């Protein structure tokens, strides 16, 4: 017998109670603290900050805890909170050249001003599971060293001095970089707007697209010109003061890809750039972003658009994982009404389909008659 689908609210409440129970897990295991998450799952926290577009380690750690470690869910929590925050204004552009470097590598030069600095990297670790981590074995401190004596020049500046690489300009005519939070997305987007979208885009999506450019879909011969990770000072210019004051420091990962370019009627042969800039430490994402940025510049550089990574509507419309997960998962919602409409149509079409065979009608009716 038909039992009416009622009590949606009670079902939701019960589901959420069960969720809270499962999130906590075995009560005899101590609960995670936010400090533990922020300190020991720091790269997960960084990803949530970068894709959540909110630089706040504590909130990101809280979101990870609340989301049971589901990072996209955590990104979503952070975004939904972020959107309610008041806006005070825009910071001055940060100077990544003045970054307090923790890691800096270049694949273009063996040595360069500021040197190569490996920093805290998984690179060259042998991926062997470390059973010692099952406990809390003593871990020695890292070696402290004073900052570099010489300035750690950005590779783009080194190449730029010789004119070998294009200038670092946004070719869009706009004076203001724009803000993807405040303006509806309308294509074509300026490079600044694209970079904003890519920076908060899904790591996995950008990784796959960037990878595809390496395999021949819009190949652009990239060199990892430079990757640097470290802290920069954020300054805000307050109208009352008339000059910029520092408001804090953020950790950033920056990637400058150096790409081949043959030159065109408009520009002499020179290297071109792909650029990636991410909150926190995420080389993979910054590099993937730089590959995508370069691919998306196809039109500006007069290249043929032959592959999805060069298509800004395709890339930018689909790189946001909060949007993507929402729309994919909305298929869980009831669609009874539309399904009913389709059921009716399929039934009637099947009935019509069966008719001519049964009666073996000699001639088909003229289409659309």
């Amino acid at each position, binding site marked *: *017998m*038909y*039992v*009416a*689908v*009622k*009590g*949606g*609210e*009670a*079902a*939701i409440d019960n589901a959420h109670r069960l969720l809270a129970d499962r999130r906590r897990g075995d009560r005899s295991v101590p609960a995670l603290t936010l400090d533990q998450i922020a300190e020991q799952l720091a790269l997960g926290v960084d990803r949530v900050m970068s894709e959540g577009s909110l630089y706040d380690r*504590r909130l990101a750690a809280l979101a990870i805890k609340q989301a049971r470690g589901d990072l996209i869910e955590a990104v*979503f929590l952070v*975004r*939904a*909170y*972020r*959107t*309610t925050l*008041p806006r005070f204004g825009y910071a001055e552009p940060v100077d990544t050249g003045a970054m307090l470097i923790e890691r800096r590598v270049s694949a273009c030069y063996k040595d360069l001003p500021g040197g190569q600095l490996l920093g805290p990297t998984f690179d060259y670790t042998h991926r062997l599971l470390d059973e010692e981590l099952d406990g809390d074995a003593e871990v020695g401190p890292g070696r402290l060293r004073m900052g570099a004596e010489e300035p750690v020049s950005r590779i783009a500046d080194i190449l730029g001095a010789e004119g070998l690489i294009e200038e670092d300009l946004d070719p869009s005519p706009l004076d203001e970089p724009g803000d993807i*939070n*405040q*303006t*509806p*997305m*309308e*294509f*074509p987007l300026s490079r600044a707007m694209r970079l904003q979208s890519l920076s908060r885009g899904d790591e996995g999506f950008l990784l796959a697209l960037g990878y595809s450019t390496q395999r021949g879909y819009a190949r652009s011969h990239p060199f990892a010109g430079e990757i640097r990770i470290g802290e920069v000072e954020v300054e805000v210019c307050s109208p009352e003061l008339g000059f910029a004051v520092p408001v804090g420091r953020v950790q950033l990962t920056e990637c400058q890809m150096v790409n081949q370019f043959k030159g065109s009627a408009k520009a002499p042969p020179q290297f071109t750039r792909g650029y990636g800039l991410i909150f926190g430490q995420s080389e993979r994402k910054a590099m993937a972003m730089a590959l995508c940025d370069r691919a998306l510049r196809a039109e500006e550089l007069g290249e043929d658009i032959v592959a999805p990574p060069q298509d800004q*509507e395709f890339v930018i*419309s689909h790189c946001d994982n*909060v*949007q993507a*997960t*929402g*729309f*994919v*998962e*909305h298929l869980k*919602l*009831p*669609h*009874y*009404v*539309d399904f*009913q*409409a*389709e*059921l*009716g*149509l399929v039934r009637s*079409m099947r009935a*019509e389909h069966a008719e001519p065979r049964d009666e073996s009608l000699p001639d088909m*009716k003229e*289409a*659309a*008659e």
Partner: protein
Amino acid sequence: MNAPTYNFAYLDEQTKRMIRRAILKAIAIPGYQVPFASREMPMPYGWGTGGVQVTAAILGPDDVLKVIDQGADDTTNAVSIRKFFQRVAGIGTTTSTGDATIIQTRHRIPEQPLHEGQVLVYQVPIPEPLRFLEPRETETRKMHALEEYGLMHVKLYEDIARNGHIATTYAYPVKVEGRYVMDPSPTPKFDNPKMHMSAALQLFGAGREKRIYALPPHTEVVSLDFEDHPFEVQRFDKPCALCGAEQVYLDEVVLDDRGGRMFVCSDTDHCETRRANGFFGEMAEGGHDAQTSPLRGGRTEGPGGGEDGTNIPPPLTPPLKGEGNLSRPVAGVGSCKTSETSSFDCVAQAEGTPPGRTSSGHPPLKGEGSR
């Protein structure tokens, strides 16, 4: 850190102003998709964030909100959205179509005709009717600007050529005031005629796609068709098994694994109101007194109201249980329609016609200057 506090109806006032400006523009150009800077909401994209933002922007403290999904007030997402607005706006809610000042809906238009002063807010997944013919936004905007709708007509013609009839059953494209082709959101085409010349203001919000569009009251909305293949709505062979209504949209309910089916009203409020007024279908059994069950007891009667086409007359007695007229919320009447264990939809109206309400029944748009 302090616990986060949220503004009335969640969105900050600046954002509401931005959305209201988009709504006003949308009303001024019926059927035109107005881009707006859609915000992240605390529910997922694709789950009604556009509708929620529109509702949040127009909601005033005196509004009475009804939320339906698939025509039903008690589907989980409708419950969730209703609860959200109760929490962040503290407004009254109802399940009664007649009592609501704002109805947020996904995939249905209530069977009971809406009246002047009501606002119907649609949740829209893909606002662009041409999207599945042309995936590029840059192209489709051009096509709208140039009124280049040939592609859509070709698609409908090809349907007829292949299948003998137009194979679009929901999100059936309409033309608004002879100008813009518009996606009515994925409502079944059964509901399309209800949009035409509706007395209510109809607002469409697409959060993920960042578009708002609108149909002001009494707007001409014509479903696309051909002279020799006129637009038709779905018909059901049987009346609702519970309330006996005909000419309403029905949900198919699978009863067993041997092909047993029953058809019941998709609009739960319509069905419940009819049964409360003594109309019963063939499967409405006696003996069940539980109010929460649609199998609520009573005698079986022949098909009841709603026989004359899609223009369904209001129930014999108003849903407010006989108090006052249909067009306004009535003083002191609780709008509880079900006996759910909690009192979430049993919020009594503190006031009658709210002071300062304009004839359009649209307080936030009016009150914007006073903020």
